[in-house]
């Protein structure tokens, strides 16, 4: 999810949008490094929802802040589709901070003076955690499409294993935007004892037909690239770059709002004011999308894109409320659900659906649609009302009004 930073790399018209450290809004966690741990082994493999097993699973993660004495102050950050473990601080160049550096740090909404923050690369990703580009120990070759299909639930299973590895029994909060919010929703529903607070930002309980359609076209672009070779491009030394770049360009359109694109690019031309009347890049918006596609190729794996988007497609935790209902009834987690009014990838109706189902099952939930012109990307940007809402929610008093499980009813 570095695209927020790239917004400003390629276009110098982001007066209110910044992703770097904000002296006035808290500091940076400073120099950090990604750590790696091997979880699961042959004797105790990761059992996926499909029944398939994986072992070992390497997980890349970072931590910020200090774990307190009673190990009760952990906030887990679930990243979105193309994010990584490097959420905050920097790896040596303060000008290139982690993808959620405006959100995590001393005095920031996820305050590292108070919380111990953990962020891990997702299972199936390509930023250090085992995924389709990893070497299959059984064959000595990259998994490719022989990597087992996994679900959002499986992503959470790996997060939980990491949390156990760190010696933490219960989280103060799990937070995520988009696919990250979907992980938080699953986590809270399936493991009600794990989380005190759940923060779900511009996410969904199920993709709409339109959402799935966009995912499907992105995957088609990758799989129809002549260099895809049935997913075995690594072995052959090829890369389906054209397909992956197109997938990214199209997805990126869904991350911005119509208004945002109009303000940022309008119909302005890349060079001068006279159209060149050809098929080369001419409009600024074209140049921007090309840039996004190119940057993405340097850091993302096409097979990971297929697997993670597919996990999103199948996610539907409310699909079977006969199954989910009893889970919800006994939830003691407090939820904060946030949407953005210009987000059309997962518009506010997706968040309202989550609120509706939670409230119908007597789950305490706070919800707010935040005004922001930046579309789905808003969750990565400094939108003051949004940051304030999350900060207040995380700083709620420990003895705040709780859900009455006994009561005098």
């Amino acid at each position, binding site marked *: 999810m570095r695209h927020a930073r790239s917004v400003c790399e390629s276009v110098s018209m982001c007066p209110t949008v910044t992703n770097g450290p904000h002296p006035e809004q808290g500091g940076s966690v400073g120099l950090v490094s990604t750590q790696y741990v091997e979880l699961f082994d042959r004797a105790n493999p990761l059992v996926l929802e499909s029944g398939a097993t994986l072992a070992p699973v390497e997980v890349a993660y970072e931590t910020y802040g200090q774990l307190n004495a009673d190990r009760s102050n952990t906030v887990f950050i679930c990243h979105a589709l193309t994010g990584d473990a490097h959420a905050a601080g920097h790896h040596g160049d303060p000008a290139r901070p982690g993808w959620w550096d405006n959100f995590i740090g001393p005095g920031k909404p996820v305050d590292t003076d108070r919380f111990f923050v953990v962020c891990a690369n997702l299972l199936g990703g390509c930023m250090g955690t085992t995924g389709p580009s990893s070497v299959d120990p059984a064959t000595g070759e990259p998994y490719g499409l022989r990597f087992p299909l996994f679900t959002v639930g499986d992503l959470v299973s790996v997060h939980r294993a990491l949390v156990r590895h760190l010696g933490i029994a219960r989280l103060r909060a799990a937070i995520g935007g988009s696919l990250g919010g979907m992980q938080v929703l699953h986590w809270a529903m399936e493991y009600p004892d794990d989380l005190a607070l759940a923060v779900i930002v511009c996410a969904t309980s199920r993709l709409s037909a339109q959402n799935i359609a966009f995912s499907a076209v992105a995957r088609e672009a990758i799989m129809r690239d002549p260099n895809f070779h049935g997913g075995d491009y690594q072995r052959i030394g090829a890369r389906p770059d054209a397909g992956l770049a197109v997938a990214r360009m199209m997805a990126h359109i869904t991350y911005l709002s119509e208004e945002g694109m109009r303000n940022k690019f309008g119909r302005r031309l890349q060079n001068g004011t006279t159209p060149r009347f050809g098929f080369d890049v001419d409009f600024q918006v074209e140049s921007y999308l090309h840039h996004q596609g190119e940057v993405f190729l340097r850091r993302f794996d096409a097979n990971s894109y297929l697997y993670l988007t597919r996990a999103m497609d199948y996610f539907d935790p409310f699909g079977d409320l006969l199954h989910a209902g009893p889970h919800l009834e006994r939830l003691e987690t407090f939820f904060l659900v946030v949407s953005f009014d210009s987000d059309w990838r997962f518009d506010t109706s997706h968040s309202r659906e989550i609120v509706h189902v939670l409230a*119908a099952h*007597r789950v305490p939930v706070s919800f707010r649609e935040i005004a922001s012109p930046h579309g789905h990307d808003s969750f990565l940007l400094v939108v003051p009302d949004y940051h304030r*809402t999350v900060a207040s929610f995380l700083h709620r008093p420990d003895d705040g*009004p709780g859900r009455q499980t006994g009561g005098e009813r």
Partner: protein
Amino acid sequence: MRLDLAIVADMVPRGSRVLDLGCGDGALLEELIRNRGCEGQGVELSTEAFHACVAKGIPVVAEDIDEGLPDFADGSFDVVVLSQTLQATHRPALVLREMMRVADIGIVSFVNYGHLGLRLQLLLRGRMPVSALVAERWFETANIHPCSILDFESLVRAEGLIASERVVLGSDGGPAGGWAVRLPNAFGAAVAYLLHRTPGRVHR
């Protein structure tokens, strides 16, 4: 807590699951949750009040109750409270209907515009009334649908609801006595009702 909120709090059965519409900074819900064994959920559109609730740890959704209560399923609460908010809604009848859809008990309180003091201001001064409970002038107030006790009771009947309890309030927000009890529409400064659905009537 404001006196009138204390009276509303007393009308809520202990241990209820309560939805407070226009919950403000969450003072009523905090009292109900902390001291009266209730579960609480607020609805509040104002940004500052929303943040005040979140900071207190009170669940609150920022929704416009004039759009109905689509976040909440039928019968998902025991009690819905609408305290000093009815007169500020665009569609009071719709709000009342939605309240009685999501809960069996509704509690509504409002300033009584039938009060003689207010009537006299309009009659003698020829100006829209201002009082301790109606502090804002006509161009400042959010109260676009003020009503009297008689007006509200007509609406309750028309909606097929039963008012099982009525508490008349004085200008300090506390329980009124004397003339206000005998002639509430003329002497009651404000009022709070406990409402039920009429048994057997179909609501949608």
